[in-house]
């Protein structure tokens, strides 16, 4: 059971040509960012990767109602797959990304089939244990992963054989932005499909969904596998754009942080990841420069305050403000 307010149904007619252009506008503005803020490409790339990762988590937490504390396990699986392939000599970015998605999806399938039969604390524990298991394996398989030092010698050939991953990070910027756009379009399609609506139904009341003949276990596993593939994609993108992958990509802290980013923005709202991730990462970039303790303190206080006072995140606050204005107009 969750208290996340259901997002309003989106039964709008297919957008006209003008509406479509308007929806593309923010993306075009972001694509123009390197002109306005040169030098920030690497940070922006990291933010895109985290938004993509958070979107995959939103599918689980926000729509399917599966709370996981082990999502980094799948992110790391994708990252290590891409990294290890490149060390072994397979350096084409697109091929390695696809392999990473397949490996992460298979991992998600194996764990998902086992875990999703349980609920509550047990499920939470299992998600945590699954990621801890992957972390420990990566930690000990030093020959393959480099263990605690991280994987050395990761490098990828130019994208489509043309665009090399340059020092300033331009290629990485546009590459990850394009990937994010594709994933966003896919997730938007998915959550507005009958499948997406059945996930919301399972989140709200699984017994009732089962009663009307929805195969809930299968739907939950499918959602988990899709989210796993997307998390693996995010991990592979991170390995490619930073040319490095290390153990913290599988760690509990990342699993926690990505959940926080999503919740700060607002889960189950699709755009929450786009708000929460930049806010979190820009704040982290600024605050942890001085002292990591300040950052932890600030983050902890904000998190507690949001949970107690503003469930629904930043977008939730916006939603309530809009609702209040509408109510006043009606009166």
């Amino acid at each position, binding site marked *: *059971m*969750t*208290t*996340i307010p259901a997002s309003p149904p989106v039964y709008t007619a297919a957008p006209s040509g003008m509406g479509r252009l308007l929806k593309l506008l923010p993306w075009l503005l972001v694509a123009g960012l390197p002109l306005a803020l040169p030098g920030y490409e690497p940070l922006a790339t990291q933010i895109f990767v985290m938004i993509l990762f958070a979107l995959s988590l939103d599918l689980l*937490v926000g729509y399917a109602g599966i*709370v996981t*504390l082990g999502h980094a396990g799948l992110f790391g699986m994708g990252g290590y797959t891409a990294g290890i392939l490149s060390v072994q000599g397979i350096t084409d970015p697109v091929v390695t990304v696809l392999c990473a998605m397949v490996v992460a999806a298979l991992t998600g399938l194996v764990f998902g089939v*086992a*875990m999703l*039969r*349980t*609920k*509550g*604390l*047990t499920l*939470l*524990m*299992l998600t*945590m*244990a*699954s990621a*801890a*298991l992957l972390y*420990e*394996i990566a*930690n*000990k398989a030093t020959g393959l992963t480099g263990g605690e030092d991280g994987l050395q010698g990761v490098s990828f050939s130019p994208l489509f054989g043309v665009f090399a991953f340059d020092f300033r990070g331009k290629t990485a910027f546009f590459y990850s932005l394009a990937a994010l756009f594709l994933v966003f379009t896919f997730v938007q399609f998915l959550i507005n499909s009958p499948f997406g609506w059945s996930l919301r139904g399972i989140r709200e009341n699984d017994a009732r969904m089962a009663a009307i003949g929805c195969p809930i276990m299968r739907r939950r596993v499918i959602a988990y596998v899709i989210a796993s593939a997307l998390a693996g994609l995010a991990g592979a993108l991170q390995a490619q754009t930073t040319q490095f992958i290390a153990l913290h990509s599988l760690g*509990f*802290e990342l699993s*926690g942080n990505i*959940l*926080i980013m999503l*919740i700060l923005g607002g889960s189950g709202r699709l755009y929450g990841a786009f708000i929460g991730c930049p806010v979190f990462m820009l704040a982290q970039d600024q605050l942890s420069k001085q002292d*990591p*303790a*300040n*950052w*932890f*303190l600030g*983050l*902890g*206080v*904000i*998190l*507690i305050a*949001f*949970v*107690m006072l503003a*469930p629904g995140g930043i977008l939730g606050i916006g939603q309530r403000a809009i609702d209040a204005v509408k109510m006043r107009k009606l009166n």
Partner: protein
Amino acid sequence: MTTLFTILFFGVAYGMILYLISVGLSVTMGLMGFVNLAHGVFAMLGGYATVTLMNRFGIPFLLALIIGCILVAALGFVLDRTLYRHLYARSELDQVLFSFGLILVSVALVRIAWGPLAQPMQLPGYLKGQVQIFDLALPAYRLALVGFGATVIAGLWFAFDRTLFGARIRAAVDNRAMAQSIGINTNRLFAAAFGLGTGLAALGGGLGADVLAIAPAYPLQYIIYFLIVVAVGGLGNIKGPFVAALAIGMSDTACHYLLPQAGSIFIYAFVFIILIWRPNGIMERR
């Protein structure tokens, strides 16, 4: 043979610490249905209190342990009344996030107050060295740990099974509404149980300061072990976690001694299999 006994003994000592820290979590989770990731924070604070009282104020080990336990129990009681109780009725996700926030705050505050390094534990003279039992040389500290842990556990089980307070807790775990309707003040019971649980965690943290190092990352680093004990042992009872804690303590120690290259892989795999097999813990009533 001697190696086997040594491993078993170290495993039991480790298991005792895990149990002392986790048992409160099992009771509060079973009682209030609250997913409290921040339970390790109280163990850490118990450890810091004990070490600081000993090192800076020269208070003897046992007294420092008890003072630390009381201070942290009081803090737990206050936090329950001020913050936690607002989240009892909230979703699991909210509880996870709230307690994660609490972990972050505590990590930061502890880092500001004590610095990033682990706190050294100055063991009193009578706990240094080894004790010879037959042909086994056992470290005195761990022996004391097992003895002290066993005493506390015996007291706890007596309280749980034989006193009115214990009966009330068992009643509220089984059926809260019914317990309320026969006049048990569950709110006060929750706060008392929460305080007791955090106090025990502090005791475990202080007692085990030489096993689980007292450093700011403590609640993040060991949370999975505490949660494993609770999930495998089952919610709301105090004997299941004991079995789970000993099993995990012994098998984790054995793995690290006999198969160091595998690290904790077996523990996580083992927990995974147990929880798939018995989702509600090994003590589930059928």
